[in-house]
Each structure stands twice: as structure tokens, then as C-alpha cells.
């Protein structure tokens, strides 16, 4: 252990037993979350080891890590999901611990078990707890036995079409197809009638197989227009456990979160306390340690149901960091090294309001189709209370092989209204050219009167944004864009990617040839 005293001996720094902290951590992930963990390592005086596929040789996480190890071809199954290669990379580089980020191997109990066997520390829960909460059916049984309310559904996964049909009939349509190993909306399908059941099962199983390597699915009663509220929990290896309050993640498209906020506008102190206590109870029942999240659905009558445990650092963790004032990645690393929690429940409070918008490489105008490609220009938003966690840079090609998340724009302000205004302005200032992103769409979500009033449910996008990208404001912006393109063509004819200007006789103005055609002569404009 060679931590320099100037890095560890600050007055607020938690006393860590000498020799206990890792010298080197391997980050088994890519993109913005790998960057986030690398930054935490750097601040803690820990060396970071990145791993990368052939598609990511130039990626930001590779640029920022102290070391980088290639682990295979672009498809995730041959690289980021290849446990053997990742463990080998850790052993070769001398890393004692592996941070899995989210997605990929983060919630794979086989990987956690392999790490335990190879004497590597998996920065996450123990493999038994991971296996339990990762199996949605077993998790629900455990929660029911612990007296925690759950959504009515099948008691186990099945392969028999008639079992699914019978279960759907007894639950009553609409029902939801869910992947046993699921998360992030993958493998999920809503089914409104028996006719739709078979295709939904087929698609759900195929997507579950490609996302998690396991095609088992089950059915659950579909709760119409719920809110999605989750509680962050930290649990050390000695049984110490605190919650860091809630995040509301109701704004979703395709059952995937795109905007999260904390605190939830739906909770009063009493309900918040009750749900927090239930979250702690759920994590104790699961034998959980390290950072994790208990997800609930909150129905319009304010009844809440256990949904699942997210056994990982979550995409939306920064809003909790900003509202509660705790660095979750640092806490994860401390707990994994064996340190006891220094946080006491009575010292933890929510302060102000935070919102996160997920900037995806997707086109909101075509129902969020993926939009991989080159980032031709990037200007990140700046200002007080604005944080942009991203894995991108100008000139980078967003690969087609992985999740479309480019980064997360997070704001904090004194209250919800101020946070909404700050987010709206920050999204306006988020300039990513060359690919389509969700930034402009999210601006309109944040500015929507129903969002401003806090009436957020998982049906919000479908209800208020059946389509997007038209209207007076859009037309004005388009007109300005065309004006700018005309001005640019006039004043900078030889742009970086344009052809040299053509010689033209009898004109005082530099002729412009890169774009459009110039009608010679200048006749009188219309309407004058």
C-alpha cells in the first residue's frame, strides 16, 4: 500500500486502515460509467485499468485510465461479456479488485463467483445475494416471505405456451412479459390480449437471450400508469446499512428510464419513511452488501409494490450524490475494501432538487431509433449546478455494438422549479452534431406543464409525446438554422469539408459553392 499522505490525510477523509485500500482497480466496462469510476479511482489515489474491445480502442475511458488492456473483438459477447478475458486482464495487470459498472457483467452472479474464486474483489454484492435478487422469481418469493408487497404474477418462469396463457387469463390483461434475468427494459413487452401473447413472448425471449444470455421469461400483472420510485441503499460487509432516500424514474420510453429526479414529487415524509424502511428490510432479506437499489412501483392510490433490486451502481446515481452529498462510487470502493460505513442514517438528508437527463444516440423523431455515427462537433453545457458525465468526445465514432447512452446531463438547484429551469437551459446548451440525440426531446419534456406540475407516470411519454419535432418553435429554429447555413456558406465558402469556391465573373461577393446553388443576378425578393 503506497498511498501518499497528502491524498489520504485530509481532515474530512475517512480513516482507512493502512494497507486495506486497493492499489489498482480494473474497470470491466466502457463509456460514461467507466469514465466515472476511473475518476473516482484517481481521486482516491488508486490506479485504474481499463479494458476495451476493438471498437473502443480510441474511447474516452481508454484515454483516461492509467492502463488499458485489449480484450477482444467488438461484439460484447467476445469482449466485455467474456469473463475469462477480464479476469485474466485483472491478474496480468495486478489489479486486486474489479468494478463492473452497470450492464455487461455487473449483475452476473457467475462473474461475481469467478472473482471470489480467483481472489479478486468484485465491487458489488456477494454472489449469493446477486444470484437471489437477479432471479426475479426467487427475489419475489423472498420478498413475499419477508412481508414486502409485490405485484401479482407467475410464481416461476415457464416454457409452455399454455402455462403463459392460463397465467395471463388468471391475472387478467394487460399483462407484462418480463425477463427472469432482466433489467433496463430488455425483454419486456406489454400484452393487451391473448392474440398478442405469443409474439410478445417470442420477442421477449429473444431479447432476453441476447441481452442476458438467458431466455427465461415470466408474466406479471401490468399496473397502469404507475410511478417508478426507487431507494438507494448502502450496506457494508459488517451488516451496517443506510438508505440515501429515493429517486423518481417515471419518465421512460420503451420501459427504459430517460429522465430521473430526486426527491420524488409524489412522496410526503410519511410515505417516504415507510418505503425507505421497506427498502432496508428488502436488502436485509436478500443478504445484500455494497451499493444497491430497491425499485418500487407506486400506483395512483399511493400503494407501493416491490419491483426488483438493482444490484449495481445505477445510471442515475448522480442525482442521489447531488441531493444527499455522498460520492457513491467512492463509498462502493471503500465498502468493498472492507471499510465500515462512516455514514449514519440520522446525518443523511435530502437537500435541494436534482434532475438527470440521459443523452442517448437516438432519434426522437423516428420513435427513438438508434443513431450511431461520428460526433462531428461537441459543446458540453456548463454553468453553476451543471454536471455532464459522458464517455464521448469530438471526432469519436459512436459504435453500433453497444448501448446508445452517450452521457448524462445532471443539474442540482435549490428546488424543483429551479432545477427544471436549469435543466431546460443546460439542454439548450448541449450541442452534439453529427448524430441524433435525445437532448432536444428531453428539453420539451422538462418544459411540459404536466412535468412541471410533478404529474409524472410511466405513461407520460406515450400520453404527452405521441410524436415530436413539429410546431411553431421548431419551424423558427429551422428557419434560423437555414439562415445560419446561408451565412456560413457566404462567409466561409471553403469550410473544412467543402470544395473550393468556383470563380464567378461580375460579382462582388465571394461566390459560394459548398452548399446549395446561387441564383446569379439577385432579383428582388418576394413580398417586398
Amino acid at each position: 500500500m503506497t498511498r501518499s499522505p497528502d491524498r489520504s490525510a485530509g481532515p474530512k477523509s475517512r480513516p482507512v486502515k493502512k494497507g486495506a485500500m486497493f492499489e489498482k482497480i480494473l474497470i470491466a466496462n466502457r463509456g460514461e460509467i467507466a469514465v466515472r469510476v476511473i475518476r473516482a479511482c484517481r481521486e482516491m489515489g488508486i490506479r485504474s485499468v481499463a479494458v476495451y474491445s476493438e471498437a473502443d480502442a480510441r474511447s474516452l475511458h481508454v484515454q483516461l485510465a492509467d492502463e488499458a488492456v485489449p480484450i477482444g473483438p467488438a461484439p460484447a459477447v467476445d469482449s466485455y461479456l467474456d469473463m475469462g478475458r477480464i479476469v485474466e486482464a485483472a491478474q496480468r495487470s495486478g489489479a486486486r479488485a474489479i468494478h463492473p459498472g452497470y450492464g455487461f457483467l455487473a449483475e452476473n452472479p457467475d462473474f461475481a463467483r469467478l472473482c471470489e474464486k480467483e481472489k479478486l474483489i468484485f465491487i458489488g454484492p456477494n454472489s449469493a445475494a446477486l444470484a437471489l435478487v437477479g432471479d426475479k422469481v426467487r427475489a419475489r418469493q423472498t420478498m413475499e416471505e419477508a412481508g414486502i408487497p409485490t405485484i401479482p404474477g407467475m410464481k416461476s418462469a415457464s416454457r409452455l405456451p399454455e402455462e403463459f396463457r392460463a397465467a395471463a387469463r388468471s391475472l387478467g390483461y394487460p399483462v407484462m412479459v418480463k425477463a427472469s434475468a432482466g433489467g433496463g427494459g430488455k425483454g419486456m413487452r406489454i400484452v393487451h390480449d391473448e392474440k398478442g401473447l405469443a409474439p410478445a413472448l417470442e420477442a421477449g425471449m429473444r431479447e432476453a437471450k441476447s441481452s442476458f444470455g438467458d431466455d427465461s421469461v415470466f408474466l406479471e400483472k401490468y399496473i397502469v400508469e404507475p410511478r417508478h420510485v426507487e431507494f438507494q441503499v448502502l450496506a457494508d460487509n459488517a451488516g451496517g446499512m443506510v438508505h440515501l432516500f429515493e429517486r423518481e424514474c417515471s419518465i421512460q420510453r420503451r420501459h427504459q428510464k430517460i429522465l430521473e429526479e430526486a426527491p420524488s414529487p409524489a412522496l410526503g415524509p410519511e410515505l417516504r419513511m415507510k418505503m425507505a424502511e421497506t427498502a432496508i428490510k428488502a436488502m436485509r432479506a436478500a443478504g445484500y452488501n455494497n451499493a444497491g437499489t430497491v425499485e418500487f412501483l407506486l400506483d395512483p392510490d399511493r400503494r407501493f409494490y416491490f419491483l426488483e433490486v438493482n444490484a449495481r451502481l445505477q445510471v442515475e446515481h448522480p442525482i442521489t450524490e447531488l441531493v444527499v452529498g455522498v460520492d457513491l462510487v467512492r463509498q462502493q470502493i471503500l465498502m468493498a475494501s472492507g471499510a465500515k460505513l462512516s455514514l449514519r442514517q440520522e446525518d443523511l438528508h435530502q437537500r435541494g432538487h436534482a434532475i438527470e437527463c440521459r443523452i442517448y444516440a437516438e432519434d426522437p423523431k423516428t420513435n427513438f431509433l438508434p443513431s450511431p455515427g461520428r460526433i462531428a462537433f461537441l459543446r458540453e453545457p456548463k454553468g453553476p449546478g451543471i454536471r455532464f458525465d459522458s464517455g464521448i468526445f469530438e471526432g469519436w465514432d459512436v459504435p453500433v455494438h453497444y448501448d446508445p447512452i452517450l452521457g448524462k446531463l445532471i443539474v442540482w438547484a435549490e428546488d424543483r422549479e429551479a432545477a427544471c429551469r436549469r435543466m431546460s437551459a443546460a439542454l439548450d446548451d448541449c450541442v452534439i452534431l453529427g448524430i441524433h440525440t435525445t437532448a432536444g426531446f428531453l428539453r420539451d419534456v422538462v418544459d411540459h406543464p404536466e412535468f412541471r406540475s410533478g404529474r409524472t407516470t410511466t405513461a407520460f411519454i406515450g400520453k404527452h409525446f405521441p410524436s415530436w419535432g413539429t410546431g411553431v418553435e421548431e419551424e423558427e429554429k429551422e428557419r434560423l438554422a437555414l439562415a445560419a447555413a446561408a451565412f456560413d456558406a457566404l462567409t466561409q465558402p471553403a469550410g473544412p469539408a467543402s470544395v473550393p469556391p468556383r470563380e464567378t465573373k461580375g460579382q462582388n461577393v465571394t461566390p459560394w459553392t459548398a452548399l446549395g446553388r446561387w441564383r446569379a443576378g439577385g432579383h428582388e425578393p418576394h413580398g417586398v
Partner: protein
Amino acid sequence: MNLMEFEFLVDGAIRTIGLENRGRTFVFRDGENVLEADVRRVSANELLFHFGGRTARIYLTRDAGRTLVSVAGREFIVTEAPQGHATSLKGDEKTSEGNLRIKAPMPGKVIKLSVGEGDEVRRNQTLLIVEAMKMENEIQSPVDGMIKKVHTAVGDFVDSEKPLIEIEAKK
């Protein structure tokens, strides 16, 4: 007076923008809409438009023959208007025999091909599934018809330019 007109293609529509340099300001015309603005270039990629007491920061860059423009959080792709003024430039185009060309709406990998040459298809029937960024996208037939050609196979990486399937619409 310096007046010129530019013909652009944006979002599938041809637009004519008049631009007049009045020395201190520029006047832009788009049909009946007229904008007089003081325009300043901050850098190769940033313009400031001052008009009516407000300032708009506009970012732009050129990439592969396109001008990419960002206005208050919205991105626009502006290209040179093609010769000949086609009225509609959106959607699937037709071959010389009048067959419909089906393209992928996004780059990705073909993971399922549900039809073969000679198959009869109905409108909205799934033809193939393209996956990108872990998302499946079903491509459906826009018409009742018959599959004339299949230019792709399962496992192919496809872009959004090349036709994947040709369909002869039922008359």
C-alpha cells in the same frame, strides 16, 4: 445591393433562403418570413445572431457535404438542394420497374429475415429485423405485394442507404 438566394434541402423539403448584405446587418428571407439580424462569427463553428433584442448562439460544422446546425438544442442537417426539384424526397424509393426498395431506417445488423424471394406479403407484415445498439427494429412491408429481390442475409451489417429488399406492389 448584394442579394442572393440559396437552395437547401432540410428534413426532406427544398427551401429557398434569400440573403442580403446590408453592411451592418443581414436580411434573410424565407418566403414571407423576413429576419434582419446582426450576425457575428465567433469561430469557425459558432455564429451569434442578434435580432429583436435577443441573441441566438448557433453552432455549425460541415461533415461529408452536409452542414450540421444546432439552434437552441435542436439539430438540423442542411444539404445542397438536388437538381431537378423532386417534390418528395422522403420514404422508400422505387426501382425502374416500379418495385419498392426497402431500406433500413438505421445502421445495424440483420438478425432475422422472415421472407424470401417470391413470397407474397401483406401490408405491415414483418420482413426482417435489424438490431443496433441492443435494440431490435422490425421492418414491415409498406404494401401488399410480392418479394422480388432480397439483397441481404442474417448476420449482415447494413447501413441506411442500400436497399435490403425489393417488393412489387399488388395492383
